[in-house]
């Protein structure tokens, strides 16, 4: 339903004529959804004013950052936060940066690299917002999930500005918790449903030391970027192992010895996707590299703070791999490939090759948490891919899963996906069935419960968290203007 002229005008008064649109012409670009209007607020005050208007007129709203994915009902207001693209602060001494929603990870990381710093970039890719909660390739060093946010500035569904932790009390970004119990418990972003309602307008994220170069020495022309040299005191390798058990043994030892900057449990299909510049090249490379690996494996980057530190880490790495009967992939020892992988797996610039390039879509089951447990489940989920591969519904990746260590192996993440052509209705249905079946198996066999599943089943199995969340949303959002929370992708 279109906004009345008067209501449209009220929003226009807040953001300016250029920053609101309800013309059908823009809607195909916004998920082909018939939004009541798309609004581009420029700062916290404008967001607040828009939210208050939504309350006044009982209009549902949803915010997006780069907005990679999302499902939206019609006739709601979409807040496209594109104009809020400032890096507010980088505090080197206290290891945090403060960003607005439309600073993408690549921008923040480039600024951080100059200062010998880095942060957690989500595996979805460096083209996503830096503010996003999530997990990524570098989690071994840069942590993940909701553990990287510090203070957050939040516009509640009622249009109040709440600043968490030290931000609310003493105008500092370094701590998002307190006074007393932490509201960071409920301030979270991810793909809805069940995301914090309202809008995050700024967030502080933790930073980590970056022993690498202030900028990678990239040469070449797109899509053939490579490094002119491997930066000093850094090395990247891919190791495969004779069994999952051996791989896990090595992965755990690497975590406990704290030697890896990154441990990315790539399967060889993803390596092939990452380093190649076309679908055809990827297929050929996958077939070739598959013959070289001896089983499941992972990709490791070690980075020394000094030559001595690097030498130590390298020695330990080689020892651990040898003890687990691991084999180094020759292709990754080639400095050109090593450099490509190193750069792309720290700048996280090749995720799209690994996911969308093949067929145009991929459906995934990602799980954060206990790595050894989720690997167990993932083996079965991988086997369940085989019939789909045989039927040609999904890209043949050997039925593999992947994942990575988080916080030096304390936590972990496992993921498995199917890449397919979404225009192929049969393939789409088969993939969705696989996803449903494997989620159900995970639930029944008690590996985990995906919270994307049916809430009436999942909720009671997880201490009825959904009911608590529902109560909370009602308390925060009495007018029901932010029912699905915010999509920050």
């Amino acid at each position, binding site marked *: 339903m279109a906004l009345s002229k008067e209501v449209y005008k009220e929003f226009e008064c807040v953001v300016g004529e250029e920053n609101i649109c309800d013309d059908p012409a823009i809607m195909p670009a916004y998920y082909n959804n018939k939004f009541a209007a798309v609004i*581009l607020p420029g700062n916290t005050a404008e967001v607040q004013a828009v939210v208050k208007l939504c309350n006044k007129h009982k209009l549902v709203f949803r915010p997006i950052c780069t907005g990679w994915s999302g499902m939206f009902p019609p006739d709601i207001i979409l807040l496209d936060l594109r104009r809020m693209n400032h890096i507010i602060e980088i505090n080197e001494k206290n290891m945090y940066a403060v960003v607005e929603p439309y600073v993408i990870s690549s921008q923040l990381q480039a600024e951080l690299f100059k200062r010998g710093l880095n942060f957690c970039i989500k595996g979805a890719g*460096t*083209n996503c917002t830096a503010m996003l909660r999530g997990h990524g390739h570098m989690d071994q060093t840069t942590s993940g999930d909701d553990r990287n946010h510090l203070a957050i500035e939040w516009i509640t569904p009622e249009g109040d500005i709440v600043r968490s932790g030290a931000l609310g009390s003493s105008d500092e970004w370094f701590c998002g918790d307190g006074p007393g119990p932490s509201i960071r418990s409920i301030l979270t972003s991810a793909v809805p449903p069940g995301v914090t309602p309202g809008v995050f307008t700024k967030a502080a994220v933790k930073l980590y030391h970056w022993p690498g170069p202030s900028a990678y020495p990239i040469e070449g022309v*797109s899509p053939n970027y490579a490094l002119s040299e491997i930066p000093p005191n850094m090395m990247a390798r891919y190791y495969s192992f004779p069994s999952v058990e051996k791989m896990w043994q090595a992965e755990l030892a690497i975590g406990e010895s704290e030697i890896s900057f990154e441990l990315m449990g790539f399967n060889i299909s993803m390596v092939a996707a990452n380093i190649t510049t*076309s679908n055809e090249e990827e297929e050929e490379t996958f077939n070739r590299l598959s013959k070289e690996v001896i089983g499941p494996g992972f990709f490791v980057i070690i980075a020394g703070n000094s030559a001595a530190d690097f030498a130590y880490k390298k020695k330990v790495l080689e020892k651990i791999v040898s003890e687990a009967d691991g084999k180094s992939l020759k292709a990754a020892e080639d400095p050109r490939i090593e450099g490509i992988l190193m750069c792309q797996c720290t700048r996280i610039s090749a995720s*799209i090759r690994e996911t969308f390039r093949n067929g145009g879509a991929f459906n995934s089951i990602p799980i954060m948490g206990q790595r050894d447990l989720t690997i167990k489940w993932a083996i079965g989920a991988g086997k369940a891919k085989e019939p789909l591969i045989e039927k040609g519904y999904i890209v043949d990746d050997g039925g593999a899963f992947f994942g990575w260590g988080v916080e030096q192996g304390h936590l972990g993440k496992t993921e498995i996906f199917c890449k397919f052509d979404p225009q192929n209705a049969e393939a789409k249905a088969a993939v969705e069935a696989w996803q449903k079946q494997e989620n159900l198996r995970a639930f029944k066999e008690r590996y985990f419960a995906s919270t994307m599943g049916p809430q009436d089943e999942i909720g009671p199995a997880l201490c009825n968290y959904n009911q608590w969340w529902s109560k909370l949303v009602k308390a925060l959002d009495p007018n029901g203007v932010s029912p699905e929370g915010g999509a920050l992708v």
Partner: protein
Amino acid sequence: MGLEQYKGDMEMCCRCSACKFIPMQRVKGNQYAYACPSISRYNFHAYSGGGRLNIGAAMLKDGMKYTDKLLDIVYNCQLCGACGVSCNYAMDMEVLEPISEFRIKCVEDGKTNPALDKVIANLRKQGSMVIGARGKRGAWAAGLNIKDATKEKVDVLYHVGCLTSYDKNMQKMAKATVKILQKAGINFGIAGDAETCCGGRAYQMGYTKDFLNQAKKNMAMIKKSGAKTVVTSCADGYQAFKVLYDRFNLKGDLKVLHISEYIDKLIRDGKLKPRKKVDMAVTYHDPCRLGRLGEPWVHWEGKKIPGDRFVFDPPKPYRRGTNGVYEPPRDVLKSIPGVKLTEMTRIKEYSWCCGAGGGVNDSNPEFAKWTAQDRIEEAISTGAEALVTACPWCEKNFTEAIKDSGSNLKVYDIVELVEKAI
């Protein structure tokens, strides 16, 4: 044909927003990370490369009404191709082609932009892209003793271009080019008054028929002249001759060089020796149609292979901006003694458009200027005293934007610096 042939490509867009930015690994900081002038200015996703693909897909699937907003989206695009380069770093799909086809469709459906209609009317009347141009096209060459390629056989036809011929401020480029070619002892000529627009900008604007008319006229004249090589100092012209004519099977064996490529060759062959010192700190702007869009056309025909991937039989080679003309202009600058080249952040295949492409300088001069202004700030940030480019449309747009901004930054075409050095 038309938009329909890109249905699969448009549906491949996963809305990753890579098209809005320069290739991720090339991002050097918070500033100068944006690649697409259109979405950078207008902010709604519809203005991005991906947004345009979404619109194209919707047009094919459900049909769309041509609202003012839709046409605003369509015509506020320089068709610079930056979106495609960033997208094609990772994805195998056409980006600029469907965007261009949508423009063409708008023109075919009679949904034109009045300012561009005026330009095309002028083209049909005068054979030029410069509205209100006075005098004869070849008048700038008076007294320069240049061979008339319509009357004498020449090895090289120097295609001057509309803007360079008619714009008094740009004619210096033509004169400098002539001086350079004469110094190198090249057997070249110009068509003078008989020269007509290459048609490249007409194609950008969506007027395919007019482009083809111009292309046929030009190829006829080139054949008559006996020239085996066409050299031009206009990037639009370069792309027209080299890429578009080839695409429409009109080019034949004709060799097409941009003047920067030619000068680079002449220097390497020892025919040109830039000896005089030109003390200048410069930065170089890669024109879109010399750089990423100047890469050769690849003739391909095939069918999508049904299955799990978006692949074709035979395999489709995508033009990803890899083979554009990037090094020759730089090598030329490096061979001029005293010139110190400092690169901007957005260069080569991910260069930021000057703002003049796609007819935008005519249909929305304010947006064209806005785009140029961003580039000028980027140039200034390098510490350079001069911005060097290789296209008169770029130079004109930059010059006008600098005037407005009050900056001291100078703008030169590459031939002007070479002329100083020889």
